[in-house]
């Protein structure tokens, strides 16, 4: 189909897939498809964010516009906020200590719960962390500032929903933990490098060109927006990979059950057998199916039409 040269982010995508659970080398078709999906999602996000900003009466996209798009996924919102606060910390630390914060690159999956951070940095850092205010949050709906239920470190205590949201994050961390448990030092170094793969880190210009941002918005989005987009694109690839793995496993299950039904069984294993099931990489069709599963419209979008039929205009769901 399209020539391979126009796909620029193959190494990054490969690294991200590796981190999200895919052990084999994905074929070029898979990474091309993922790149296309990510690009269309970025475009969709920018379009919707621009519309959101226009509704506000502003011409430029703000951080809140982007976060608004993913507001239903609280885990992701929390991760994003943590990521942004890390950025702030890094900036302030540089100003304060002359750039001595070590570990120059922020971890993409900086999903450590907020309570852990202050312990690592020391007391005077924690108050520099600015949390992005979400205008649609319940606490911001009152004209007076609502006092949160505060712990000693000044953060709001987790409520039920947050705990559920953190669950997804924790699960991810857990699976990463299991994977890296058996790694050697070199493997772990490789792993941590792959974890830092990003679409936008230090490649902002290339990213802007690739996404065609000039054609989408009048105003040039600032670097914060690009960083957020980088974070979100990593999330997209991770989610796609996880879903695709699920699809692939289900398919393999089906194959096995069917092969059992027709009573053909591999009785012996020979030395030169083709690779086993777990050696099969994720194929493009798995990714396509995963994407489709993620795009299923919620019933509320169609209920309003009273089920009377006709073409329902669906919006592309931001993963």
């Amino acid at each position, binding site marked *: *189909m399209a020539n391979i040269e126009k796909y620029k982010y193959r190494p990054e995508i490969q690294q991200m897939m590796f981190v999200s659970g895919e052990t084999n080398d994905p074929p070029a078709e898979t990474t091309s498809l993922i790149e296309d999906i990510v690009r269309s999602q970025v475009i969709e996000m920018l379009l919707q964010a621009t519309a959101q900003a226009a509704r506000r009466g502003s011409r430029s996209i703000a951080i809140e516009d982007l976060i608004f798009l993913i507001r239903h996924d609280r885990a992701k919102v929390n991760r994003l906020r943590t990521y942004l606060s890390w950025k702030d910390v890094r900036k302030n630390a540089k100003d304060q200590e002359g750039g001595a914060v070590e570990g120059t690159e922020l971890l993409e999956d900086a999903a450590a719960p907020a309570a852990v951070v202050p312990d690592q940095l020391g007391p005077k850092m924690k108050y520099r962390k600015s949390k992005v205010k979400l205008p649609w949050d319940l606490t911001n709906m009152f004209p007076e500032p609502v006092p949160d239920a505060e712990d000693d470190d000044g953060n709001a205590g987790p409520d039920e929903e947050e705990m559920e949201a953190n669950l997804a994050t924790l699960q991810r961390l857990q699976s990463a933990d299991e994977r890296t448990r058996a790694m050697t030092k070199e493997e772990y170094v490789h792993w941590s490098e792959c974890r830092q793969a990003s679409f936008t880190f230090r490649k902002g210009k290339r990213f802007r060109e690739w996404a065609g941002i000039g054609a989408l918005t009048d105003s040039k989005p600032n670097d914060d927006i690009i960083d957020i987009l980088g974070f979100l694109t990593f999330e997209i690839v991770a989610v796609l990979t996880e879903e695709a793995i*699920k*699809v692939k496993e*289900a*398919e393999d*299950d*089906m194959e096995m*059950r*069917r092969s059992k039904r027709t009573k053909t069984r591999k009785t012996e294993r020979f030395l030169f057998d083709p690779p086993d099931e777990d050696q099969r990489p994720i194929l493009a*069709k798995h990714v*396509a*199916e995963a994407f*489709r*599963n993620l795009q*299923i419209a919620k019933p509320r979008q*169609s209920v309003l*039409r009273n*089920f*009377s*039929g*006709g*073409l*329902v205009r669906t919006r592309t769901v931001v993963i």
Partner: protein
Amino acid sequence: MLAQPVSRTPSISNMAPTMSAQSSARASPQPNSKRSNGIQHYASISNSGASATPTSGPANTTPSKPQRPARRIEVEALMNDFRRVLGDKWARYREVITNFLTGKLTRTELEEDLSQILEKSMVRMHNQFLLANLANSLRDPPPSTNGLPAWNTRRKDAPLRSRLSGDPVLARLKSEIMGFTPRERRRIKAITRESGKKGPIPSTIILTRQARMPTVPVINDKDKSKTSISQDIIQNYHLPLSSETFELPDADILRTRLLGIAYEHGLLDGISDEVPDIILAGLEYHLRDFLQQIFDRVRPTKHKKMSDVPFVSLIPPQQSAQLAGPQQLAIASGANEPNGVVSQVKDDKEAEPVTNGVTGKKRKRQRFEDENIITAEDMALVLELVPHSVVEPSGPMYRLFDVMLQDEIDDERPEPITE
């Protein structure tokens, strides 16, 4: 000094008697009454005279049939006779009349000139001629606007003969047509371009057939014409349908079909190479969505593998209309749960009919296992629940609802004994 006016057509005969009276007064003093009678006489002659078609002209009292316009008088024959009689003086006569009619000569001058040209015997012909022309001028214009060629020519040997006699074909045609009765000729004249067309055909079947026939675009721009367009369109209609092959179309079939459809609708530049692939991807996506809707809504009521509750199947599996679709597709989209539904294609041997004489219980158990079948009834149910899962109701949907459904069968019904 006007003669008693002809009571028939006062407007016409007002002028005519004066003209003829004055000219005749010069020529010879004759009693006016005779003149006017002559006028009437000649007028009536003209009716039955040279013209074959009866005129409802001055001879009639009033325009007798107001709904039918009066016919013109055949002036040409009159003119030719008159001309023959006049001989050499025709040119001069013609000139005089023309000048008078265009206003260059007055009445007195006209009479002076005419008295030199005309002799006594010609007066009547002159009257006739002028009267006929006058009468014609009040009626509908002639079908041919060429005028009388004989009037205009200056040569002496100009066609004294009738214009039709020179053309044998036309002459024959005319003689044939004149052989018809007037009613026939009237009917023939009434035939127009719209005759015979009865208007829109009310039959739905014929209209449908006409609508479904392939339309070939007409290319006006001559350098862009391709000879293969109609070929491609017809090829599109020769391809096997997916409902015949029980497969989704592959890229080649799809490309041929898309090309035909594009040409039919006027996109003469054809389609590019990636189009069939994209459409195939979209088609798969759409089908998977739709199948997923079905599985989501039907599965909870079926496939309780762990439960012993015998549930009512809508139809015994061997008689159910089964979803035709690629097995892979169904499996893949139902792959989210291990108890996935196996949607069977028609040639699947696992849906073998149960033989006769099997007891009800065993049959139930076997049916239980074979219950992982989505039937057409399930599909109809889902389409009722979620009508927007397809873009719009179409032919196959109507067929599903009208034709393909079967009644529910209770568990309690005794097993039918089949021959």
